[in-house]
């Protein structure tokens, strides 16, 4: 918002202010003070939420008081637009650089160091392994890449940070990983930081290829549960590197209103490639990799619905999956179906889905949703509405349909992924709204 207001002031030569809701206004004003020196943007503030409210409530915000100054709203607006700059607002030039801490902390007791890590939010608040120089050096032996190699650059509030191999090694040590895990973790680092928004999203990490067996990733019984070291430490490292390198601190720049418990481990598991029905390719092979490649895929989403009980012949499994999928927002057509090998067998042998792609196509053609329900989702409002207003199909047509019309929101079958995992103990599955990005080579990071 600061950017837009600044643009209006500079390009149109019109004084501008921002209207921020009370939940984020202090973030906005803090940001402006810190990073927008020389072009201060002023704000007024209204209560939150303003979406989903009766119109009378929103009108009340305008006729009520500004939550920053306590003045009547329009008086506050006029004052913000016309009053002279304060001494603080006249400060010009680049924002002062923040103090950079030394690469090594001074020696201290374990207790004090743990307290320091918690104070700075350099942890997920589960116990960590302190990243001593010796431990980090040992972790770095897990790759041929140099410690100062930059893996990715992460945009943070007011600047950017380079995520290096050494920094990732520190997070890997903290999470309890071994050097053998390090190439997997480096591949994961290319996707850092993890998805993080007020909408309280989470992530999914799928491991593919022979490395699953070599490092004993769990792909069978309890694949998605807390029963395996590799699944646990790799998944956890994603959180630690995202929180530290991504500078995610609660109520400072991490604003997930509910948060998401899946962020502790990021649903890290391996596909049970050995149990795939004939003709069903592993996830990474569907993405164009060779079966012998070691690949990691990251998804981002919010929701997961389980079959709960065993499959019943009265209602085919994929019908139930379809029904549950209609609850999802279908942002970007994204869905990931995680199914036990027994369910995969049923879908192939009983219901005739010879490939995963056929199943994805079937979902794309058969999942329907009430039009108003589609547009009633906030994420859809911020993504599909702009496209609809610019005439892009099918959004433009859907916007004109009656509220109770049925639409097929999963327009892109390639965004619907099917992953087989589990121990053949129950005909169990999860349908999720996780959108999986293209896989990343683990071999590259050996």
């Amino acid at each position, binding site marked *: 918002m600061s950017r837009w207001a600044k643009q209006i002031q500079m390009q149109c030569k019109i004084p501008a202010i921002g209207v921020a809701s009370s939940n984020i206004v202090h973030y906005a004003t803090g940001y402006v003070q810190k990073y927008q020196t020389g072009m201060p943007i002023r704000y007024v503030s209204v209560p939150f939420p303003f979406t989903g409210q009766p119109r009378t409530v929103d009108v009340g915000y305008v006729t009520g008081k500004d939550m920053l100054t306590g003045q009547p709203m329009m008086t506050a607006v006029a004052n913000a637009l016309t009053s002279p700059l304060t001494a603080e607002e006249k400060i010009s030039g680049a924002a002062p650089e923040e103090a950079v801490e030394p690469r090594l902390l001074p020696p201290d007791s374990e207790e004090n160091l743990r307290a320091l890590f918690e104070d700075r939010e350099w942890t997920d608040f589960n116990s960590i392994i302190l990243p001593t120089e010796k431990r980090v050096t040992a972790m770095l032996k897990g790759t041929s890449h140099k410690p100062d190699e930059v893996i990715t650059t992460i945009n943070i509030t007011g600047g950017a940070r380079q995520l290096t191999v050494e920094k990732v090694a520190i997070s890997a040590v903290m999470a309890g990983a071994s050097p053998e895990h390090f190439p997997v973790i480096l591949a994961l680092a290319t996707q850092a930081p993890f998805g993080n928004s007020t909408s309280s999203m989470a992530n999914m990490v799928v491991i593919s290829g022979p490395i699953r067996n070599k490092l004993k990733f769990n792909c069978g019984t309890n694949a998605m549960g807390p029963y395996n070291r590799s699944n646990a430490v790799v998944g956890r490292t994603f959180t630690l590197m995202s929180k530290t390198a991504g500078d995610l601190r609660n109520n400072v720049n991490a604003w997930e209103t509910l948060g998401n418990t899946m962020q502790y481990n990021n649903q890290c598991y391996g596909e049970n490639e050995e149990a795939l029905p004939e003709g069903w390719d592993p996830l990474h092979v569907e993405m164009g990799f060779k079966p012998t490649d070691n690949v990691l895929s990251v998804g981002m989403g919010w929701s997961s619905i389980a079959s709960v009980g065993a499959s019943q012949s009265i209602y085919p499994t994929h019908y139930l999956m379809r029904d549950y999928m209609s609850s999802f927002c279908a942002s970007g057509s994204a869905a990931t179906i995680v199914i036990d090998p027994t369910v995969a067998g049923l879908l192939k042998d009983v219901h005739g889905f010879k490939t995963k792609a056929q199943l994805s196509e079937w979902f794309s053609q058969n999942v329907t949703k009430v039009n108003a329900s589609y547009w009633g989702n906030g994420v859809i409002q911020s993504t599909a509405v702009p496209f609809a207003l*610019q005439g892009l199909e099918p959004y433009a047509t859907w916007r004109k349909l009656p509220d109770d019309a049925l639409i097929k929101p999963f327009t892109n079958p390639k965004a619907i992924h099917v992953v087989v995992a589990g121990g053949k103990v129950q005909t169990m599955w999860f349908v999720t709204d996780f959108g999986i990005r293209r896989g990343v080579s683990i071999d590259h990071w050996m």
Partner: protein
Amino acid sequence: MKPRLFPTVLLTALVLALTLSSRALPKTAQEAGSSAKSGQDAAGSAKETVPFPQVPRITAEEVERLAKDDGNVVFVDTDDPEAYAAEHIKGAVNVAYDPTVDAREQDQLLSALPGDKLIVFYCNCAHEEDSAPMVLEMWELGYDRAKVKALKGGLTRWEQLSYPLVGTDVDAAHEKGAK
């Protein structure tokens, strides 16, 4: 009495290089910029290196024909909203290229683009500097590589060929012409 532990702790990951250096481009963009620059240095001349050579380009002539034939083309203008409002290819949608925004937010917008059509990104720049990185991001999102391309020569080339444009500047020019 228990001995106190004095572990020396590496803090690099946690210091996070707070220097507010370069408003960073995505890594790929940085690499492309750097290779373009070194290419110039090595040649010792002003010879330009095409950034993001791995991104397939499509000519204005070809895409205009495809759009006419079956309409199965989506144009995406990567300029800022003001420039888009002023002038864009008829039927184009706008997703501004801004390497400083949260990539995840931008991904949500990009992933709303249809997967069953040819998607052509274009910018108002000489060598697809802003449109090509968007193509790379679409690949990362899992879009079919053969169905996402950058318009060679961008808006300038489209305009040179007098292909249809819309926007406030275009309207104003028409009004002026009518008078």
